[in-house]
C-alpha cells in the first residue's frame, strides 16, 4: 500500500479530504485527514520535505540554502549568486548584514556546537561571482500598460520593483534620499556594508528601467493616489527612532543627545563627522551596536553601551555584540536610564538604576537591586532604544484603516490594505523586523499587486515549485557530496583593528577566502537531499536501522505520534521535527524516521538492498509574481 499521488492544485472535494487554504499561501488537500486514513506521512505535501531543510524553512524568503552552498563548494560562484539573487535580491548585502534566522535553525547546530556559516558563505558567492548581469532579466520589457508607485526605496520596495518590472509594469520609485537602499544605506554603517556593494545590488534593480523619483519626499498619499497609479506600494520602513522624552534633563542638552538611527543616517550621508570623546549608547539592539562602533570611528574614545536587559537577552545578534566587545566597547547590562546630568547647559553624563531580572510566569520583570544609582560620564549620548512606524503623510480618509498602534490593517497573506489599491511591505507593514523579512514580504506583495492589476483575487496564492531529483549515480556514489566532515565552524577573518577604527569606511570583515569557503561549505549536511522511503519495496532487513549513524530509523508497532516517539531507536524529544511514518509493512510494523538529527549521509540508501530508500534532492522554490504557476 503506497500513498496515492496527489496532484497539487486539486480543488474539488477529494476522496481523502477536503481542500484547504493554508496560511503560507498554497492550496492543498487536507493533510491530516489523509495521514489518518493512510497511516503514512504525506511526502507529496510541498511543505513536508521543505520543513526538513531547516535553513530554507527558517528563511523568510525560503532561499534554497544547501543548493547554493553546494555551488560554492563547486566553485560555481556566479550560479550560487544567482540562486540567491532570485530568492533574496541582495546576496552581497545580506551576506554581510543578514539577521540569519537560518543559522539557529541549522541541523548542524543540533549535532555539534555551531551551525554552518550560511550568511558568510553567501558573501563568498557575491565576492567571487563573474558576470551576473547576463543571467538577469534585461529590459526594455514590453509594457503591460500598468503603472505602480513604490514609496520608499528600501529592500521591500526594491524587491517589488525587481519582481514587477520584467512583467512590463512601469515602476515609479519615490524616496526622500538621493540614492536607493533605504535603511540599508542610512542605518547600516559602511564598515559592515561598503557602499560599493550596496550601489551594485541596488543598481541591478534600478537598471531594469525603474523611474526613480529621488530627493522627493511623498507628503500625501492622496495626491499619489490621484496621480493615476494602478497600485501603490508603501515600503517606508520604521523611520522614527524612539526617544526618552520624559527623562529628567533630556531637553537641557538637546545638541548632545541624539536619536540613534537619525545620527547613523547623518553619518552615512556625510552630515556628521565627529562625536565627543566620551559616549554612552543607550539600548541593546543591533542599532546600538552600530552606533557604538561608529562612535569609536568618529573620535569616541570611551564608548559604552548601557542596556536595561540582561546581556543574554539583548536584542542584538550575538555576533554583533562580540564585534562591539572586540573593539573595546564595554556593555553594561541591567542598567535603567534615570536622568541626564547637565551643568551650565553642558551634558556631563547620565544616571542609571541597577536592576535585576526576575521571571514570573514566563514574564520578565526588572526589579531595582537597591544599590545606589550609577553615574556614567558622557560628552554625547546616543539613544538606540527601538524604532517605530510613522505615517504622517497618509491621510486618514483614504479608506486605509489603522489599528490602535497606528499600523495599517493588512491582510497578512496579501499585504493589501483596506484600500484595495494600496499595499504595504517591509517594516512599514508589521513593524520593524529585518532586511530578509522585508524582501520576503516584497515578493508576496508583488504577487498581490500583479494579481490585483490583472483583475484577479490577490487571495488566490501560488503553489510553490517543487522538484524531487534522485541522486543515485552508483552503488556507493551520489550526485552530492554525502560524506560528513568533522570540521568545526571556521571563523571569518577580520581586518586589523588599528586600521578599521581609523576609518569608518574600511570593512571590518574580510570574508572567507575560497579555500576556507570550500571547507566551511563542506560542513553543510545537504538537508535538501531527502531520504525517500518506498513502502512496497521494503523487505524489513533492518540494514538501514543498523547503519544509521544517528539512529534515526526504527521499525516498530504502529501507534500515534506521542506514543511512537517513546519507542524509537533513540530519544525523539525534539517536537519541532517531524516523524516520517510509512506503513503498515508485511509484519504490521511501521517505518518511523525521526528527521531531527538525520545527517543526510545516504548510508540508509546505500545499505538498502531493494532501493526502498532513495536519496532525492528536493528543490523548493517560492513562486514569484508573474509565474504561470497560478492554480486557477
Amino acid at each position, binding site marked *: 500500500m503506497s500513498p496515492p499521488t496527489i496532484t497539487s492544485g486539486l480543488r474539488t472535494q477529494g476522496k481523502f479530504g477536503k481542500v484547504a487554504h493554508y496560511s503560507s499561501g498554497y492550496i492543498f488537500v487536507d493533510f491530516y485527514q489523509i495521514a489518518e486514513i493512510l497511516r503514512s506521512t504525506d511526502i507529496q505535501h510541498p511543505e513536508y520535505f521543505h520543513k526538513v531543510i531547516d535553513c530554507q524553512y527558517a528563511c523568510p524568503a525560503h532561499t534554497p540554502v544547501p543548493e547554493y552552498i553546494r555551488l560554492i563548494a563547486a566553485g560555481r560562484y556566479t550560479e550560487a549568486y544567482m540562486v540567491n539573487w532570485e530568492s533574496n535580491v541582495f546576496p552581497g548585502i545580506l551576506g554581510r548584514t543578514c539577521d540569519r534566522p537560518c543559522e539557529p535553525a541549522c541541523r548542524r547546530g543540533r*549535532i555539534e556546537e555551531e551551525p554552518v556559516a550560511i550568511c558568510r558563505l553567501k558573501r563568498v558567492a557575491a565576492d567571487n561571482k563573474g558576470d551576473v548581469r547576463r543571467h538577469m532579466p534585461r529590459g526594455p520589457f514590453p509594457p503591460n500598460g500598468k503603472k505602480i508607485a513604490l514609496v520608499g526605496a528600501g529592500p521591500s520596495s526594491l524587491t517589488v520593483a525587481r519582481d514587477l518590472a520584467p512583467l512590463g509594469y512601469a515602476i515609479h520609485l519615490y524616496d526622500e534620499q538621493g540614492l536607493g537602499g533605504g535603511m540599508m544605506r542610512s542605518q547600516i554603517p559602511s564598515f559592515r556594508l561598503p557602499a560599493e556593494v550596496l550601489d551594485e545590488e541596488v543598481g541591478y534593480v534600478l537598471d531594469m528601467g525603474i523611474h526613480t523619483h529621488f530627493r522627493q519626499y511623498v507628503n500625501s498619499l492622496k495626491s499619489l493616489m490621484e496621480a493615476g497609479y494602478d497600485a501603490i506600494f508603501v515600503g517606508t520602513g520604521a523611520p522614527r527612532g524612539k526617544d526618552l522624552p520624559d527623562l529628567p534633563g533630556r531637553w537641557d542638552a538637546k545638541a548632545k543627545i541624539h536619536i540613534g538611527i537619525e545620527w547613523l543616517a547623518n553619518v552615512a550621508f556625510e552630515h556628521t563627522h565627529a562625536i565627543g570623546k566620551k559616549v554612552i549608547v543607550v539600548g541593546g539592539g543591533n542599532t546600538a551596536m552600530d552606533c557604538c562602533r561608529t562612535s569609536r570611528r568618529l573620535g569616541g574614545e570611551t564608548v559604552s553601551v548601557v542596556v536595561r536587559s540582561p546581556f543574554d537577552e539583548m536584542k542584538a545578534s550575538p555576533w554583533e555584540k562580540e564585534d562591539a566587545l572586540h573593539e573595546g566597547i564595554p556593555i553594561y547590562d541591567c542598567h535603567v536610564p534615570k536622568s541626564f546630568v547637565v551643568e551650565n547647559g553642558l551634558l556631563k553624563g547620565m544616571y542609571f538604576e541597577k536592576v535585576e531580572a526576575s521571571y514570573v510566569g514566563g514574564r520578565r520583570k526588572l526589579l531595582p537591586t537597591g544599590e545606589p544609582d550609577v553615574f556614567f560620564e558622557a560628552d554625547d549620548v546616543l539613544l538606540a532604544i527601538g524604532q517605530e512606524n510613522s505615517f504622517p503623510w497618509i491621510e486618514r480618509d483614504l479608506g486605509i484603516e489603522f489599528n490602535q498602534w497606528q499600523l495599517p490593517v493588512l491582510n497578512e497573506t496579501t499585504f493589501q490594505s483596506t484600500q484595495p489599491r494600496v499595499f504595504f511591505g517591509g517594516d512599514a507593514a508589521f513593524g520593524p523586523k529585518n532586511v530578509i523579512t522585508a524582501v520576503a514580504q516584497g515578493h508576496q506583495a508583488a504577487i498581490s499587486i500583479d494579481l490585483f492589476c490583472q483583475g484577479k483575487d490577490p487571495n488566490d496564492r501560488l503553489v510553490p515549485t517543487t522538484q524531487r531529483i534522485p541522486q543515485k549515480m552508483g552503488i*556507493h556514489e551520489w550526485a552530492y557530496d554525502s560524506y560528513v566532515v*568533522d570540521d568545526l565552524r571556521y571563523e571569518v577573518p577580520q581586518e586589523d583593528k588599528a586600521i578599521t577604527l581609523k576609518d569608518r569606511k574600511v570593512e571590518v570583515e574580510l570574508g572567507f577566502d575560497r579555500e576556507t569557503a570550500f571547507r566551511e561549505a563542506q560542513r553543510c549536511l545537504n538537508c535538501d537531499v531527502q531520504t525517500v522511503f518506498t513502502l512496497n519495496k521494503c523487505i*524489513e*532487513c533492518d540494514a538501514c536501522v*543498523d547503519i544509521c549513524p544517528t539512529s534515526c530509523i526504527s521499525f516498530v508497532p504502529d501507534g500515534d505520534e506521542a506514543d511512537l516517539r517513546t519507542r524509537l531507536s533513540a530519544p525523539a524529544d525534539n517536537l519541532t521535527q517531524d516523524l516520517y511514518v510509512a506503513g503498515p509493512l508485511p509484519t504490521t510494523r511501521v517505518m518511523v524516521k525521526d528527521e531531527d538529527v538525520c545527517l543526510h549521509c545516504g548510508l540508509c540508501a546505500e545499505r538498502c538492498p531493494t532501493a526502498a530508500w532513495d536519496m532525492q534532492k528536493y528543490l523548493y522554490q517560492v513562486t514569484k509574481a508573474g509565474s504561470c504557476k497560478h492554480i486557477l
Partner: protein
Amino acid sequence: MSFIKPNFRHPGHKPNALGFLPSDYEGLLSTLCAGCGHDSIGAGIIQACFELNIEPHRLAKLSGIGCSSKTPAYFLGNSHGFNSVHGRMPSVATGANLANRDLIYLGVSGDGDTASIGMGQFVHLVRRNLNMTYIVMNNGCYGLTKGQDSATADKGSKSKSGNANVFQNIDLAGLAIELGAGFVARSFSGDKTQLVPLIKAALNHPGFALIDVISPCVTFNNNPGSTKSYDYVRQHLEATATVDFVPPADVIEVNYEDGAEVDVTMHNGSQLRLRKLQPGWNPYQKDAAVRALHEASTAGEVLTGLIYVNEVQEDLHVMLNTCERPLNQLTERELLPPLQALDAINASLR
C-alpha cells in the same frame, strides 16, 4: 562515496553503567552486501554488549572463514579478536579460554564454517562444554563463493538458479542438544526483539551456548522457494516462547498461575523470563525440546527462541579441575615447584 561512517551520533544517547556509549561498541563500516542478515546480528551483538555493560576489553571475538567470520570487524572494535583458519575457530577458542578463563568468549561462525569444514571441531567443542557463546550466522548457502547450497540448506529448498537441494540438512540446534550443550537457541536476524535477549542470556550462560541465527543471504539465497529467505522465514516463524532477559538488579519474584511463564535463573542472578507459546515444549527437557524441533521441521516451520537450557552444567574448566587463576597469569613461582617439592614427589615414587 561513503565507505566511512560519519562520526556524529545521536546526541540523545545515554551512556551505560560503565559510561560507555553505544558507539563505543561499534566496529568498522560493513563491507557485506547491502541488506545482509549478518549486519543485523552484528547490531544485535553491539546492543546486547552495551546493555550488559560489558567492558569491551573483557571480550574476545573469534571467527573462522566466510561472510559470517568477517563480521567481527564490524562490531566491538575495542575488543580482542582472532580471525582463525576455516572451521578451526573452536580450537583457537579452546586454547584461548584455557589460557585465560577471565575473558568472555564470543565465537562467530557460519553454516559452512560450522556444519561443513568445521563440523569435526564443532562437535568436540560442544562435547567439552567450553564456556563461550557460539553464534552461527546461518544463511543456508556459501555466499562468499556465489551461493552453493550449504549443509544447513533444507532438503527441497531452491537456490537462486532454481535447483532444489537434494540432501538432508544438518540441524545445528538439534545436534548441539544431542551432544550435551547447556544452552541452545535459534533466532532470526530480522527479529532483534527476540535475538538481543537471547544473546544477552547466552553471554551470561556459564558454559557452551549456541545460537543458530537464520540470516538471509540477500544476494544468493533470498529467492522464492528458498527456506532461508526473509519472506519464507517471516511466514514460517514459530517461537517457543517470548524471551525477556532480566538483569540481576531488576529481578523480582513473580508467580504465574497458568504455568505459561518459565523463569530461568542464570549463575549471576540474572533471569531469562520466557512466556511459552508452544504448549508441549519444556526448555528443561531434552526430549521435549528435540521433539519440538522435529515437529516444527516436519511442518515446514522455523522454530525460534530458547529451545533447551541446562544452566547448572559444568564447563570445561570445572571438568578439568583447573585453578581459578587464569593459566596465562601464573608465574614461574607457581609453575616451577621448588627443589623440595620435587624431592617430595620423587620420594613418593620411590
